């Protein structure tokens, strides 16, 4: 028997605030989280100086040395975002978390950057200076997932979803399938990314990072003629997925239902996106949800602000969903939060559906003529009442994901 899966908690840490009220008002004010990074001034080989760091957040007293010793920044953000989401779901401290009925699907591009330096130093010099019992725990790619498990005493299955820019969306998709097929009652799903120079350097090398260093708020510019690449961002977001019957039984407030997930691979080029498989993944999500393309009322684009990505995505979106489709990219506000973007964008897309207002793509002033015709939201965004929203993400290595959420009435 297949179960229906609902979302009962959402939370996160972002460049524009740590709750929907704050973030929503920043989106309505068309405020960008992109900043000039003074501290990167010394890295002369790297052209970009832009990033969208998470805004300051405080950790409560119970984040002690012992609970945090195995965490680098990415694991701390994963854990704190999860705590906010569990609190929101009314599940903090509840037996279901520790009984084995709750699992975790969580990812990031990688673990923390600082320990890599310690191991690099060891490889070069043979010295273990800077290496402690926890250095590896902070560096490993599933550091967020297992630290969440330790912090909250979660004993169900753990599905690490560290797949770069689809880490967060795969987490939601895999968590949804885990509950759908009866393997767990509750799933903690999300993704996170800590800011470090590495990812920016990667995109810089590929000439895909924005270098509008003197005008941070004008970039990235998804789908815009004058875009010059992406900006790396930071953050974490967690969604609590739950078996619908259990959620109803405990009287939980329900945000939305997860109804469709598609996931496939390009199988062709390591960095260049492929329109046909992008379109295919959206079809897979529609088939999974047993919906026609007409049922979708808004698409949250991956929309990174790179030429190849934007054009391929727009063509694929038009092919599957038609020219009428309202679409916008939240990366114009938060930059590309890599491992976090899938869950961050899912969270905010669901909030926008509940508010009947969808944010515009800021900095989209002149549509790139290479991009396919769609209903690109600009200006003050759009008041829209829709039944279903789609959120798409695409990662290096050619991983594609598409998620469909249904309004909960």
């Amino acid at each position, binding site marked *: 028997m297949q179960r229906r899966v609902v979302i009962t908690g959402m939370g996160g840490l972002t460049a524009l605030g740590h709750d929907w009220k704050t973030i929503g008002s920043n989106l309505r004010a068309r405020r960008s989280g992109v900043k000039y990074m003074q501290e990167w001034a010394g890295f002369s080989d790297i052209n970009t100086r832009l990033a969208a760091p998470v805004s300051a957040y405080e950790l409560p007293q119970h984040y002690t*040395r*012992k609970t945090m*010793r195995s965490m680098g920044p990415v694991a701390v953000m994963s854990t704190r975002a999860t705590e906010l989401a569990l609190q929101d779901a009314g599940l903090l401290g509840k037996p279901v978390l520790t009984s084995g009925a709750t699992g975790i699907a969580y990812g990031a591009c990688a673990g923390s950057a600082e320990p890599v330096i310690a191991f690099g130093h060891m490889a070069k010099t043979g010295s*273990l*200076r800077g290496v*402690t*019992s*926890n250095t590896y725990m902070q560096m490993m790619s599933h550091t967020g997932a297992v630290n969440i498990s330790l912090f909250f005493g979660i004993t169900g299955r753990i599905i690490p979803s560290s797949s770069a820019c689809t880490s967060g969306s795969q987490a939601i998709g895999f968590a949804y399938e885990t509950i759908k097929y009866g393997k767990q009652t509750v799933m903690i799903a999300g993704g996170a990314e800590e800011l470090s120079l590495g990812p920016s350097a990667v995109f810089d090398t590929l000439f895909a990072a924005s270098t509008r260093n003197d005008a941070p708020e004008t970039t990235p510019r998804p789908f815009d003629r004058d875009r010059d690449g992406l900006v790396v961002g930071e953050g974490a977001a967690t969604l609590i997925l739950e078996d619908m019957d259990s959620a109803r039984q405990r009287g939980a407030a329900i945000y939305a239902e997860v109804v469709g997930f598609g996931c496939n691979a390009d199988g062709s080029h390591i960095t260049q996106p492929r329109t046909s498989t992008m379109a295919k993944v959206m079809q897979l999500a529609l088939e999974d949800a047993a919906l026609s393309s007409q049922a979708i009322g808004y698409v949250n684009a991956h929309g990174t602000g790179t030429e190849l990505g934007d054009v391929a995505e727009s063509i694929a979106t038009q092919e599957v969903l038609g020219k009428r489709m309202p679409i916008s990219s939240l990366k114009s506000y938060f930059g590309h939060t890599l491992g976090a973007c899938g869950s961050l964008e899912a969270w905010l897309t669901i909030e926008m559906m509940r508010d009947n207002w969808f944010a515009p793509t800021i900095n989209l002033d002149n549509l790139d003529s290479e991009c396919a015709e769609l209903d690109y939201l600009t200006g003050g965004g759009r008041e829209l009442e829709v039944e279903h929203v789609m959120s798409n993400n695409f990662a290096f290595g050619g991983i594609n994901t598409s998620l469909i959420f249904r309004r909960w009435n």
Partner: protein
Amino acid sequence: MDNQEIYQTLKNTLVEQFDLDPGKITPQARLSEDLDLDSIDAVDLILKLQEMTGCKVSPDQFKEVHTVADVQAVIEQMLSVKH
């Protein structure tokens, strides 16, 4: 380093490394029961001692260590072997 200096250095290390209240650290304080250190912390303490003394600590040397005074004895032993 005389014994008083060793004790002070050890105390500072424990405070800094494990975020401990200096008032809790006495020679009689038990690492596990009184200071809430576990096996993972013991590994990090050994790594710190190696850094402090420049000597390799063998796991056997640490088997009978239960209190702060026991740790001090290990350090004194390491330093005396060295000199």
